[in-house]
C-alpha cells in the first residue's frame, strides 16, 4: 500500500530525532524557553522606542524647564518654571484655546461623518464592496499630504470650483453669509478657519473611520436584533447598544484626530488665517525666534491635554466594552 510505503508504521520510532545543526538547537531552545524568544523579538523595538523615541522626547521636554536670556538670546540652562509662566500670556493662551477648540470640533465632525460610513462597511458591505471601501479610505493616504492640501486650497479659493458650483446652484448667498460671520468667516474659504476645519476633517477622516469600523465589526449582529426584540426602536438601539459598543473605537479614532490636529502646523499655515495654532507656534519659536524652551513648553501642552482627555474618557467608561 502506498500509505505504508510513505509512513512505515512498524519501524517508525515514537520520538523523532532532532534535526540537528544551529537551527534545530535554536528551535528546541525557543520551544523550551519561550521567554528567550520573546525577549529577542522585543529587544530591538523596545530599545528604539525607549532610547531614540521617548528619550529624545524627554530631552526636548527637559528644555522646557530652561529659559532664554532676553538680551543675548542664549539659553540659560538652569531649572525654572518661567517658560511655563510665559505660556499663560494672553497671546499664547489664545493660541492654545484656538487649537483645542479646533481639535475638538474636528473630532466631533469626524465622528459624525465617519460613523455612517463605518457602519455601512461593518454591517452591510461584503466582498467587492468591502474591498472598494478599504480602497476608498486608504487611497487618499497614499498621495502626498502637501498635494492634497494645495488641492484643497484651489478647491476652496474664491476662484475655485466650490464657489463656481454654488454660483451655478444659485446658493452663493449662503457662502457669502457664512463668510461674513466673525471668527469662522473671511475673504474666502481658503483663508478662513472654516477652510482650516474642512481640510483637517478631510485629512484625518480615515483615522476615525478605520477604528470605528473595527469596533462595529466586533458587535455581533444578534445584539442589534436582541435590542429590537426587547422593544427598542432603531434610535434606542443606537444609543443603548451600538454607540456604547462602538465607543472604544470612537475614542481610539478621536485620539488620532484630536492629537494630530493639536500638533499640525502645515494645514493652518496653508489654509487659514494668520492667527497661529500650537504647531505653528512651536515651529516659529524654535526656528525664527530661536526660543527653544518656549517651543518645548508648547509641545508639552498637547501631551497634557491628551493625558486629561484619556483620563476623562476612561472615567466616562469609554473603555468598558473592551
Amino acid at each position, binding site marked *: 500500500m502506498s500509505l505504508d510505503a510513505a509512513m512505515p508504521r512498524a519501524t517508525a520510532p515514537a520520538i523523532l530525532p532532532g534535526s540537528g545543526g544551529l537551527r534545530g538547537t535554536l528551535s528546541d531552545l525557543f520551544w523550551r524557553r519561550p521567554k528567550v524568544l520573546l525577549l529577542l523579538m522585543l529587544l530591538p523595538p523596545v530599545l528604539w522606542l525607549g532610547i531614540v523615541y521617548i528619550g529624545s522626547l524627554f530631552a526636548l521636554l527637559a528644555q522646557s524647564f530652561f529659559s532664554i536670556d532676553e538680551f543675548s538670546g542664549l539659553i540659560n540652562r538652569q531649572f525654572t518654571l518661567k517658560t511655563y509662566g510665559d505660556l499663560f500670556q494672553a497671546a499664547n493662551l489664545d493660541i492654545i484655546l484656538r487649537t483645542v477648540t479646533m481639535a475638538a470640533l474636528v473630532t466631533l465632525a469626524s465622528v459624525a461623518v465617519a460613523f455612517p460610513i463605518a457602519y455601512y462597511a461593518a454591517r452591510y458591505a461584503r466582498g467587492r464592496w468591502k474591498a472598494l471601501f478599504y480602497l476608498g479610505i486608504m487611497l487618499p493616504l497614499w498621495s502626498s499630504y502637501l498635494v492634497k492640501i494645495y488641492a484643497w486650497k484651489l478647491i476652496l479659493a474664491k476662484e475655485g470650483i466650490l464657489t463656481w458650483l454654488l454660483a451655478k446652484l444659485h446658493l452663493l448667498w449662503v457662502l457669502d453669509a457664512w463668510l461674513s460671520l466673525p471668527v469662522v468667516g473671511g475673504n474666502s474659504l481658503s483663508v478662513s478657519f472654516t477652510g482650516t476645519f474642512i481640510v483637517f476633517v478631510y485629512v484625518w477622516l480615515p483615522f476615525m473611520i478605520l477604528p470605528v469600523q473595527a469596533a462595529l465589526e466586533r458587535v*455581533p449582529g*444578534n*445584539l442589534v*436584533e*436582541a*435590542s*429590537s*426584540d*426587547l*422593544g*427598542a*426602536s432603531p434610535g*434606542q438601539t443606537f444609543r*443603548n*447598544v451600538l454607540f*456604547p*459598543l462602538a465607543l472604544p473605537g470612537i475614542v481610539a479614532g478621536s485620539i488620532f484626530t484630536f492629537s494630530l490636529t493639536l500638533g499640525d502646523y502645515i494645514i493652518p499655515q496653508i489654509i487659514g488665517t494668520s492667527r497661529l495654532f500650537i504647531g505653528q507656534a512651536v515651529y516659529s519659536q524654535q526656528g525664527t525666534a530661536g526660543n527653544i524652551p518656549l517651543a518645548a513648553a508648547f509641545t508639552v501642552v498637547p501631551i497634557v491635554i491628551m493625558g486629561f482627555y484619556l483620563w476623562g474618557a476612561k472615567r466616562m467608561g469609554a473603555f*468598558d*466594552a473592551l
Partner: protein
Amino acid sequence: MTSAVSFQKASRHFGSVRAVDAVDLDIAPGEFFAMLGPSGSGKTTCLRLIAGFEQPTSGSISIFGERAEGVPPYRRNVNTVFQDYALFPHLSVLDNVAYGLMVKGIGKAERHKAAKEALSLVRLPGYGARRPGQLSGGQRQRVALARALVNQPKVLLLDEPLGALDLKLRENMQEELKSLQKALGITFVFVTHDQGEALSMADRVAVFNDGKIMQIGTPEDIYQRPKTRFVADFVGSSNVLPPDFVQRYSGQHRWGSLRPESIRVGRTASGEGVSARLVSTNYLGATTKLALDADGLKLHAIVPAGTALPVEGETVMLTFNREYLHLMDEPV
C-alpha cells in the same frame, strides 16, 4: 378561539431558496410548541418570521389575531431567547434583564425590582451586578430567559436554547423550562433539532423539512404514527419498511414504519419471523442497539441491557407484534 400564532400560506424565500414554503400553522395560546427539523429545514426562519426579523415573501402571519406583516420586532409583544443568548456585553446582568423595561421608559427603581424578581424566577438571585462575561453558559442562558420573561411577552420564542449546554444541564433546563411554562401560562415556541428534546417538552410538535411542515401532532402522534418516511426516520430513527415487505404482514402495499424497540431478537429456528444477520452491536447503557441486515434491508433493533446477545455475524430471527407496524399515508 384565536390562535396565539397563525401562519396562512406563509413563505419566506431568499432568492431561489425557499427557506419557508407556504406554511400553514396554528399555535394555541398557552401551548408549548416545538419546531423540529434538521438544520436548513426552515424552522429557525419560521421563528424569525414570528419575531419580526424576517418578513414573509407571501402569505400572512398573525399573532393573537393581529396581522403582523410589516410590523417591526420592537412593536411585537414577542420576545426571543437567542441561540447564543445575545446578552449585551457592556451591561451588567441586572441591566441586561431590565433592558426591555428601560426602553419602554420604566423608572430605574421599578425596572430593577422587576429584573431582580425575574432573576430569582430563573434561580439566579444576587447575580445582578456581574457582567455576562463572568457567567457560565448555563447561567447566561438563564439570564437570557429572564431578560425575555421580564417583559411578560404574549409569545416566548426559544431558538435552540439548550444547544450549547452539556447533557446534565440540558436535562435540568428541559424540566425547568417546562415547569416555568406551566406556571406562567405563556405560549412557548421552541426550535430544536433534537427529537428527544421536542418529544419530552412540547405539547405539540411540528416536523420541518425543506421549508415545509411534514407533520404536526402531539409527541405521541409524531413518534408512534409518523405520516411520512422522513418523519419516521428523523424522529427516533424508526425502521422504514418498503411496500413489498409491509405487504407480507399487513396485506397492504404501502410504506410502513417499525420502531426499533418493537423488534424482538431471537435465536434462529424459533419459527416464524424475519431472518437477519447481526451486523454490529452498539452498547448504549440502559439499552443496546443492534444493526441488522435482513436480505439487504437494513434494520435497527433496541433491546434492554442484560439481554443475552448473539455474536456479530450470527443469523437471528426477528419478530414483532403486527399492531406496532405503522402504515404511512404518504410515500415520501
